[in-house]
């Protein structure tokens, strides 16, 4: 704060977080009692129950053969349903976007913003409070689902989870929350930028669609352009694959997928084609699980990447919001 003192000017009084918890509790109460939230909860609980039930049915036949049986609950799939993590990668962004796309511009349109900002709080508290409320709501929902999955696993499989399984799946939960945080911050940014909630929602969904559907293809295409295979050498294939992977990691979806892979498949040693070759070269036996610390190390860059994107997006919306004229 002292650094803010300019020559001849007093620093701003008080904490920027005055009133933060009032905002958080009010917004959370809104989220948790809203119809929108109810719809999303029903949707996600149904998919969670469905996928995990199917997974458990598959796993019942292999109980005892797998050290990480509980992790399989999240990853096993049985037609016609995809695996639980697939659903999460798809649904979490939607929940996050639905939570915040109208949070700031909605206040504009209801003409409550100037009234709220005329109270003795800073804008910081309002924006951060809204983000935190979304974040806590997301945490609450995802934790509930996680517990549901674990509970169903206990009932259907009939074996208790090991300590490492619990640790790994808890870290997976944390990663999922931050993955949601990225989309939360994105929708918040758009809700600051666009006056119409519908525009903000569409823009958020467009970004989500872009990364879900198109970015993979674009990364592939770009890598073929940038690193063309001229002679068909292994090095060329590897180099191209490396570029494609780097590009696709610009997408939060790729980051999240890689984190979950590292955490939920303990035997995974590296990502992509390179990883597979590396393992063959070193003569490492596929399937021997890594200790948790090593899996975590593998996922660490992606995990920090997710957190960084969240922080970055929030920072941009923060700057936009501070500069915005609040008159309607």
């Amino acid at each position: 704060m002292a650094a803010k003192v300019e020559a001849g000017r007093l620093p701003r009084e008080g904490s920027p977080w005055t009133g933060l918890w009032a905002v958080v509790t009010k917004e959370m109460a809104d989220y948790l009692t809203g119809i929108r939230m109810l719809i999303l909860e029903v949707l996600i609980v149904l998919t969670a129950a469905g996928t995990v039930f199917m997974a458990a049915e598959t796993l019942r036949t292999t109980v005892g053969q797998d050290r990480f049986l509980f992790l399989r609950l999240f990853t096993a799939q049985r037609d016609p349903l995809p695996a639980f993590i697939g659903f999460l990668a798809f649904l979490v962004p939607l929940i996050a976007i639905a939570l915040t796309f109208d949070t700031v511009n909605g206040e504009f349109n209801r003409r409550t913003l100037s009234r709220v900002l005329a109270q003795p709080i800073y804008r910081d508290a309002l924006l951060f409070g809204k983000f935190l409320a979304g974040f806590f709501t997301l945490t609450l929902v995802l934790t509930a689902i996680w517990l549901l999955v674990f509970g169903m696993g206990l009932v259907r499989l009939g074996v208790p989870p090991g300590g490492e399984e619990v640790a790994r799946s808890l870290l997976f939960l944390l990663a999922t929350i931050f993955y949601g945080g990225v989309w939360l911050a994105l929708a918040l940014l758009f809700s600051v930028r666009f006056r119409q909630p519908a525009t903000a929602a569409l823009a958020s969904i467009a970004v989500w669609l872009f990364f879900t559907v198109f970015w993979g293809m674009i990364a592939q295409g770009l890598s073929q352009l940038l690193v063309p295979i001229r002679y068909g050498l292994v090095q060329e294939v590897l180099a191209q694959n490396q570029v494609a992977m780097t590009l696709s990691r610009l997408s939060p979806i790729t980051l999240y997928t890689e984190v979950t892979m590292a955490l939920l498949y303990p035997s995974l040693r590296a990502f992509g084609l390179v990883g597979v070759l590396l393992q063959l070269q070193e003569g490492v036996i596929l399937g021997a699980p890594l200790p948790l610390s090593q899996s975590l190390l593998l996922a660490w860059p992606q995990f920090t990447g997710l957190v960084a994107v969240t922080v970055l997006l929030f920072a941009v919306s923060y700057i936009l919001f501070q500069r915005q004229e609040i008159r309607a």
Partner: protein
Amino acid sequence: MDAPVIQTQELTKRYGNFVAVDRLNLVVEPGEVFGLLGPNGSGKTTTILMLLGLTEPTSGTVWVMGLDPARQPLSVKSRVGYIPDQVGFYDDLTARENLIYIAKLNGIPRAEAYRRIDDALERMGLTEVADRPVGTYSRGMRQRLGVAEVLIKRPALIIMDEPTLGLDPEAAREFLNTIRDLKAQGITVLVASHLLHQVQAVCDRVGLFHRGRMVLEGTVEELARRVLGGGYRVHVEATGPQAAILEALRCLPDATKAETTGPEKYMVEGRRDLRGEAARAVVEAGGSLRALQLEEPSLDDVYARYFQEVEYGREG
């Protein structure tokens, strides 16, 4: 506490090349109702936002109760109540829930907050509907809820932006009475409005805004005298010899102008109230008096006349 509640010096706000507020010098004394009047886009709302520290001035200084709103916004905003133009509430929450949120934002302890909320709702006559969602409220009720909201923080100054806009005449009159009540409690009130005729009735002093500048300031009577010249207009309705009556009216002492405004209708402008003299003059000229009325100086007239002159002045 005799220091001015609001004091600005050469306060200026620019948006790019557009000057929203131009070198404003405004002083509002404690306990008065001050009207910030002028058409839309003349800089009233921008001035208010600067008073609350919601917008930073480009240059000049603002003091609200001795505090700088840009540097000490929390202290200023905890003592100033602001009712924005078309005040909005969370429609799906009840009035009481809306007020509880505001009380929390003000950091008022719970028990005290509940007491103040009950008190404020009671005073604004909203106790019966306090637990209904605000979405079901009429425009007038919302406006009253706006007052109830600012009363929670026990403000020394209340700023209202277009408080009577969109209210039906009855609700507007009630609301103006509310402003009088606030004044009676010693609260200073700043009202911004373009509905001059409604607001002039409650204002002790007014400032007329035009294109970002406060061009006139004073009591309504002062402004009327200054701009409308004579200031006092008497409308006379009388039957009898027209020419003689008109001549008699014109010859009254202190009369500046007399004219016919219709069949058997006359108007006298004077430097003081000429009703008595006019009545006698009509009778002495052989007419019979039917009606006699002193025209209240109207801010609308002041405004229209003033800017007519300004425009003429510019062209000439």
